[in-house]
């Protein structure tokens, strides 16, 4: 809990899109997946997820549909990546990589040379 980091603006969107690359998922699954893959470093406040999801839906990057879950007899709202979202993810990802590399180069010049 103490190691919790604040997400940069727009980063959450990218993480959601990246998660959906594996296939459709509902809000809780997305939250859990992000948490698990980052080893709980990004202790995401679940509440912030939903405005982000609805924003992505409005922009046409994801599409939502009520579907019955595989493991139980209950409908959840599943989000699925749309082609526009896939393109957005690629763009966002490369931008992030550039940014990260630039920051790394400033912070740790020696390590950066090796890459």
């Amino acid at each position, binding site marked *: 809990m103490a190691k919790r980091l604040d997400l940069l603006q727009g980063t959450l969107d990218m993480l959601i899109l990246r998660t959906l690359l594996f296939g459709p998922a509902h*809000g809780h699954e997305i939250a859990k997946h992000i948490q698990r893959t980052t080893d709980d470093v990004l202790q995401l406040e679940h*509440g912030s997820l939903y*405005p982000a999801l609805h924003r992505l839906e409005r922009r046409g990057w994801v599409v939502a549909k009520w579907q019955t879950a595989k493991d139980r007899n209950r409908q959840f*709202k599943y989000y699925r990546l749309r082609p526009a979202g896939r393109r957005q993810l690629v763009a966002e990802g490369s931008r992030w990589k550039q940014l990260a590399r630039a920051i790394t180069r400033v912070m740790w010049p020696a390590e950066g040379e090796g890459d």
Partner: protein
Amino acid sequence: MDWLRKRRETDLERELHDHLDLEAEEQQENGLTPEAARYGARRALGNTALIQEDVRQAWGWTWLERLGQDVRHVFRAIRRSPGFAIVAVLSLAIGIGASTSVFTVFYAMFLRSLPVRDSQQLRILNWAGGENVPAHSFSGYMTEVNGIRTGGSFSWDALQAIQKGHTGFSSVAGFSQVGTNVVTKTQAWQTAAQLVSANFLDVLGTQPAVGRTFTADADSPAAPPTVLLSWRMAQRLFGSERSAVGSSVIIQQVSYTVIGVLPPDFPGLRQTEPTDVYLPLARAHELSDFYRFDKPDTWWIQIVGRVAPGKRDREVRAALDVILAQVAAAYGAQVKKPVDTPKSVLLDGRTGLDILNTDMSRSLVALFAMVGLMLLVACANVANLLLARGGARARELAVRLSLGAGRMRIVRHLFTESLVLALAGGLLGFLLARLGTVLLAGLLMEAYEWALDLKPDATVMAFAMGLSLVTALLFGVLPAWRSTGVHPAACLRQGGTGAGSLRQRLAKSLVVVQIALAFVLVFGAGLFARTLANLGNVSLGFRPDKLLLFSVDPSRSGYKEQRLVDVYRRIRDGLAAIPGVRSATFSSIPPLAGWMSSQSITVPGYTPPPKDRSPLYVVAGDQFLTIMGTPILLGRDLSASDDEGSAKVAVVNQTLAKKYFTGNPVGREFAFGDKFTKPVRIVGVSADAKIHDIRSKIEPTIYLSYAQYPSRLGLVTFEVRAAGDALSLSNAVRHAVAAVDVTLPVAQIRTQREQIDRNLFRERTFAFLSSFFSAITLVLACIGIYGVFAYAVARRTSEFGVRMAVGATGAQVGWLVLRGALVLVALGMAIGVPAALAVATLVRAGLFGVEPADPATIAAAVVAMVVAAGVAAWMPARRAARLDPVVALRYE
């Protein structure tokens, strides 16, 4: 929109609920108690209400939702103050309704395409050329401007050449107008027929509803005579369109077989004057001596063509010019004279020939101007109402502004309100226009036999709605911008009356504009009313009362020369024998119907100045002037003894006597034409009487005896002087004519008074409509004045209280208000009078006996405006005068 939003809300609630359930389940699996798990889940998710709000923000507002919200808001506001909405919507509905009525008639007359296939391909062929274009007689029309003559008719040769040549027309037909008597066993009708090429209907792109069209051999005079009838003519003659086909009708003593009946909605090439009878062009010579196939300088055929798809008008014209040049050259070689070659002109034939009816279109444009002014006044009214309401709502708007609403958002909201009002006004106006169109068409059709298709269609609807949008912009934008231009804090401090004085100034300027516009209309109405009154007081020179008129044309039923003279006499004698008829006579010109005939004369001793006008002549029955009630001043009237065996005589009017002769002209002689051969002796001088037109001044006029000039007769008008009611003789008159020849149609039975009314149709219509429109406009302007001053009195209540408390009387305070109104009227006049005078010069041609700047009319209009404004401001002024100072001071 609402349900969409609600569904999204429940969706979101369910989604968040699901999340909490799953999270709680997971935490429970980690060993927490159900209670603790639920609590933990909730903590992990965060504040649900805040999340919902954030999500809503992410959804954003679509413009549609915003519009829906605005519209709901508007309807709430209208429910709160329905009086405002009713006045606004009614004002607009009247303005838009009147405009739409005029538009509907205009559209039906000039803009609506003929109901035929691909009407955009139709062209009417005209020509333009110099003085020596070899065209000597015309059917259709011809005009000359600056030495360039243009005309709409061609020779038979030209039609043949164009039909055979390669022109870029896919098909070409000729047509010509002719008057006919159409006779069946039981009925006889006088009607205008169209002589047409056999392919005429194919070129126009229509076909008979029943039966068939002409076969190609109808273009030959040897073919059996066939005829096509309009739907209404078939109904008239045979009772139904089916029984018409195969029946026969007699036209100019030839029996024609009816082969087809046209569709009921097909008016022919003239939508305003539908054609009832179509005859083969090849039979033209039987119907009129004018129409010759063998004379290349007799031009009598109008031409309609269909442009082949993909061909440009320019290409078609070039090809036509070549053909016209060949035809002209062939004629030039024949007469051994140089002739001018006419160039072709193509007119859009989509709407038929009515585009040429400029007289009517000008009148309608004037009507448009009137209703346009009215609509502007209505708009100013609504703008004023909105301004006043903006004042009342200033506090609400200030609160909304200070809570952070954007100015644009509020302007948009207020504008939505205008739009809702305008569309409501437009819709109601559209419905009103259906009534208005019927009334207007009724007025216009009284004079012409029109069969206009006045059904409102998408175009008319679009016009009404477009007009509402324009009005919304006109009256909505200014108040909306004005109302939001306040400083919220200042406004709230002042208790919601911020920016009041500026708003008042704006409202007053609008009233000034209204007064100016209303003045223009009132003044115009005054001019038209005086014109009509002047025309009613014109001295006619004969007694128009108890006089029945009708027309007969025996020449279209085969009567010629002596037989023609005899049949007129027999009809006249039959009429005179009817009980209740004092006397009867006839003339080649119907009195005061706008007809005239003239011919130059030669008088020994009189040298005509250049461009001397020829005198009018009337060929009439004996005792014509006496029966009409025109005094004979010298000599005698035409008599029964003035026949073909006796010397040619004439009666002339006083004006002619004065112009051509000095002293007593009785016994003197003149001759028709420019040589003094075949002299005519003057046997009498009559007082001046109008025969051509009420408006025109008396021209020199010659009265000739019918028995001496049968070649100048054809269609004549009988004048029957009744002892009592003239119109009640109608049936007896029909029987009297039928007793002479049952195949002679009696047409246009009307009294002389009706004839005069018909002649003054335009003036009457204008006087009536302009008075009507200006009255409505005046009422609208008065509502505007009343509104502004009622509001001003409410605002100044405490001020008036102070004035009264320090000694002003009620009358003085009331005068203060009234004076304010009069100042606005004065300002309005300052704009209105010059504007009205400028407008009046535009309608000078429509006035009679009154100058555009007539001082009496100006004075009357000013008085009308002052009185109207005084009445409108009277109520607020009286309220101010009756204020109780104590109550007034406590106000606010």
